[in-house]
């Protein structure tokens, strides 16, 4: 031991006296300074955690490379100078010689870890966070980074010992690319060759898309599995090092050393297998369930589909999804729904639902359909009317003894419960969950009865993906509003719970909506901005109020100029991934914002794009571009573009009051476009309001004429000017 201490001390001397080894620390400091500079550029529109984790992975990868190289260097240094050969004639034991070096490389790595964690702690304390929360986050960072460095050093040593030349350095980037590249490039859709389970084979837990931090849910989802993952990483790092000791200069190794190493090897191997297995099953059950969900809903409609180029493919797919939107009309409605819910930790849900169902159709019927996720089991089904319930998959069929007449209502009561845990993106994220510190039950999870036969998931065969299908949420918009009275109770859930309908008193929510119910629990607050209820992370409160004000202006403008009433009653700010999962079923009642994009410069442009998409999604007649088939029956390409520009500008104008010419300066569509735009600029001279009126005029014309040749801006402008003069 004393010997080891000596070796370590002298290696330390060598380390601190080598000026090149200061480079990584300098690079780290530069990186953090850059991050903080960027942060000040972005303003404090987002949470500190979001900022930190956005850069964390980069800094981790950068350091992984640097530390790996240093590990290789530390071994190669004495070998290349032949000093190792001389040292091998000393009594020093193999393990002492290598362990001294290994420890010094580890210490070097952990210095960077501590540096990072310290920066994180200081940074996080600038935000209103509890000490416990900061501690948890720093443990996470420490486990991720520390474990990753531990194992990269071991592998660096392995490469250096196995490859006795300069190419041992190449092994480090190769290893990093091999292990990290697949999950790194991962966008939530693993391609055919990309088994998502292999994403577990990384030096740090990489089982997330983008970043581990999930807004109001923090790092709760990944925390525990990351600790297990990193435990496995640490054990494997030691295992690899023991293996290196075992193969290093075998002729120099004494018997005792060999036996000790064999013991260490077998112990670490056993531990590695057990812990890795735990981590694997932890992930694999999620993955399996994802596949089950996919297979449950799979639709083979497009099985003989031939892929064109990528762009064509996405166009086709989007078209398909648009066509398959779940917007089918159903004559029945749930008038009143009284829902008693009990949430339990570990994704358990128990509910009693009192429903008042009405026949809005013109004919009598004796069958009413409801939709409830098949993960939930119905335990009771009563009504004063004589009826029988039968469940098949997601669908519940109520068969009534007496047909129900038009405009007639009846009441019934359903009791159901079970586990509700759903995954997205090959199990690397959860889309419906009830946990201690995070709850999310979106409407699309089908966690309460919906009227009619609704498809909860659209699953499409896709040969190019590893799981052979892709999943999207459907757009569950109802034909008639429902009045919900929800009473909510929870066991073991420690965070505040909110719903897409307003809270009336403790645990009670009431509201009438066409959208349905969403239930969110996490680190969040509710505030009212310009009459809109906004649910967000507490740190986002301030920035959200200014952003929602802007949205409000834009929505108000849409209403004023185009009679489009799209203003929602409630806005929730969700993390990136959830946003993309849920964006399909946004409605005028309940609107989602993406935590990642709602800050920084150019928020107005972002809002313009967002609202433009909202218009597209809402099924209202809207300007339509980019289906450029070039057929002679269609409106001129440039006309459509100009109309689009005008429409977007008119949204923009509500917030910024900037003239069209200014808004349009960066556009570069060639000379033909420039000629046509001259006319618009001519009209602009009459004032911005004049141009807004013209845009409205075009909007009406477009609704009437569609994408036909008749839609000709030149001619419409003539007509408009004439009309205005009169």
């Amino acid at each position, binding site marked *: 031991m004393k010997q080891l201490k000596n070796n370590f001390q002298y290696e330390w001397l060598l380390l601190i006296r080598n000026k090149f080894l200061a480079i990584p620390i300098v690079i780290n400091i530069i990186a953090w300074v850059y991050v903080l500079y960027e942060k000040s550029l972005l303003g404090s529109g987002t949470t500190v955690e979001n900022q930190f984790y956005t850069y964390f992975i*980069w800094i981790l990868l950068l350091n992984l*490379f640097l530390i790996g190289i240093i590990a290789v260097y530390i071994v190669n240094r004495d070998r290349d100078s032949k000093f190792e050969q001389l040292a091998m004639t000393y009594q020093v034991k193999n393990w002492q010689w290598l362990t001294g070096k290994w420890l010094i490389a580890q210490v070097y790595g952990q210095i960077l870890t501590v540096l990072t964690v310290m920066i994180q702690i200081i940074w996080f304390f600038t935000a209103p966070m509890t000490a416990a929360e900061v501690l948890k986050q720093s443990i996470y960072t420490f486990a991720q980074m520390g474990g990753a460095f531990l194992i990269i050093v071991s592998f660096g040593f392995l490469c250096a010992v196995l490859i006795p030349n*300069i190419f041992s350095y190449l092994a480090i980037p190769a290893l*990093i*690319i091999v292990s990290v590249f697949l999950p*790194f490039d991962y966008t939530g859709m693993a391609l055919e060759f990309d088994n998502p389970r292999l994403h577990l084979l990384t030096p740090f837990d990489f089982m997330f898309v983008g970043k581990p931090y999930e807004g109001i849910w923090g790092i709760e989802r990944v925390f525990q599995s990351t600790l297990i993952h990193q435990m496995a990483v640490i054990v494997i790092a030691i295992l690899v090092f023991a293996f290196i000791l075992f193969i290093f200069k075998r002729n120099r190794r004494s018997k005792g050393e060999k036996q000790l190493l064999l013991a260490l090897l077998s112990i670490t191997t056993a531990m590695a297998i057990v812990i890795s297995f735990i981590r694997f099953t932890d992930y694999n059950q999620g993955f399996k369930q994802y596949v089950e969900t996919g297979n449950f809903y799979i639709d083979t409609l497009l099985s003989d589909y031939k892929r064109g180029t*990528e762009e064509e493919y996405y166009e086709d797919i989007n078209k398909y999804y648009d066509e398959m939107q779940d917007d089918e009309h159903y004559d029945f409605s749930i008038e009143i729904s009284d829902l008693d819910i009990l949430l339990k930790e570990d994704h358990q849900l128990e509910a009693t639902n009192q429903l008042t169902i009405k026949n809005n159709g013109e004919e009598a019927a004796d069958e009413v359909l409801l939709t409830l996720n098949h993960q939930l089991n119905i335990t009771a089904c009563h009504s004063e009317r004589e009826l029988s319930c039968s469940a098949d998959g997601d669908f519940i069929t109520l068969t009534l003894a007496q047909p129900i007449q038009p405009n007639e209502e009846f009441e019934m009561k359903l009791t159901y419960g079970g586990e509700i845990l759903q995954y997205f993106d090959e199990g690397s994220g959860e889309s419906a969950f009830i946990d201690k510190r995070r709850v999310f039950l979106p409407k699309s999870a089908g966690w309460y009865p919906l009227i009619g036969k609704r498809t909860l998931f659209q699953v499409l065969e896709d040969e190019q993906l590893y799981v052979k299908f892709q999943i999207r949420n459907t757009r569950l918009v109802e034909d008639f509003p429902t009045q919900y009275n929800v009473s909510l109770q929870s066991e073991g859930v420690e965070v505040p719970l909110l719903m897409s309908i307003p809270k009336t008193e403790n645990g009670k929510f009431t509201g009438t909506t066409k959208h349905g119910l969403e239930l969110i629990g996490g680190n969040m607050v509710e505030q009212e901005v310009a009459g809109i209820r906004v649910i967000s992370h507490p740190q986002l409160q301030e920035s959200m109020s200014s952003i929602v004000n802007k949205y409000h202006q834009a929505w108000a403008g849409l209403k004023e100029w185009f009679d489009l009433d799209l203003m929602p009653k409630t806005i929730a700010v969700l993390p990136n991934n959830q946003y993309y999962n849920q964006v399909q079923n946004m409605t005028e009642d309940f609107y989602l914002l993406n935590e990642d994009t709602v800050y920084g410069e150019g928020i107005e442009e972002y809002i313009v794009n967002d609202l433009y998409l909202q218009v597209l999604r809402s099924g209202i007649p809207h300007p339509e571009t980019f289906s450029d088939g070039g057929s002679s029956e269609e409106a001129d390409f440039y006309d459509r573009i100009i109309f689009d520009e005008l429409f977007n500008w008119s949204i923009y104008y509500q917030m910024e009051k900037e003239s069209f010419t200014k808004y349009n300066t960066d556009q*570069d569509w060639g000379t033909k476009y420039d000629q046509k735009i001259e006319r618009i600029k001519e009209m602009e001279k009459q004032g911005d309001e004049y141009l807004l009126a013209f845009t409205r005029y075009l909007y009406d014309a477009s609704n009437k004429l569609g994408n036909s040749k008749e839609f000709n801006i030149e001619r419409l402008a003539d007509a408009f000017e004439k009309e205005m003069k009169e």
Partner: protein
Amino acid sequence: MSGMFFRCRLFFKKWVSSIYGIALLAAIPIAAIILYHDFYYEETGKLLSLIFEQLAPIWLILILQRYFSIEFDSGFFTQVVTYPIARYKFLLERFLFACMLFFIMLGIIALVLTSIFGAIIWKAFLYTLPLYFFYSAVMLIGLVISKRSLGALLGGIFLFLLSFIGAPLLGQALQMIMLKYGSVIYFLEGKTGYAFADNDLYYYNRLMYMGFGIILFILALIKFQRKPV
């Protein structure tokens, strides 16, 4: 000049008489053939990007490293600088030898591919040149700072990693892997008619790398010329 020719020949002879050297040279065409045959590409750009922007830099790195290692790793360069040859010329010469080998091999591939895909290959090739130049300049800096081929190797590899994993960090303007984007290919083909506001960006991107490359290159030469060993 004849001296240089002799040295060039000597280096080349050494190169082709080692298994590693031959394997390295052969790797370029072999990988190109495999890539061409075994994968289906929806767009030519993907293949071009793979060959020119993602694999060729590795070869460039390895070829340069090997050339540098001959004199730098053995410490012989300390001797060479006592000979009546300007230091920067010596460095430049080694660099040129390595580049020659690299460009001859890549040229052959480009020639073959041209017969399949047409002139776009040459345009893509030319479009990537600034990138190669930047790679070499970074390696040269690494070399003169560390006085070992290791410095060059690490410099090159770091850049290579950056081009892959660091892509989002570099932002749009500094992207190193460009050819895989269809719009870049359109740009190279000189297609117009659509609005590509980014056209200038594609152009400046490479100008930027060329510029950085030249600056680093000159810095490396100056440092090598000045600094006593």
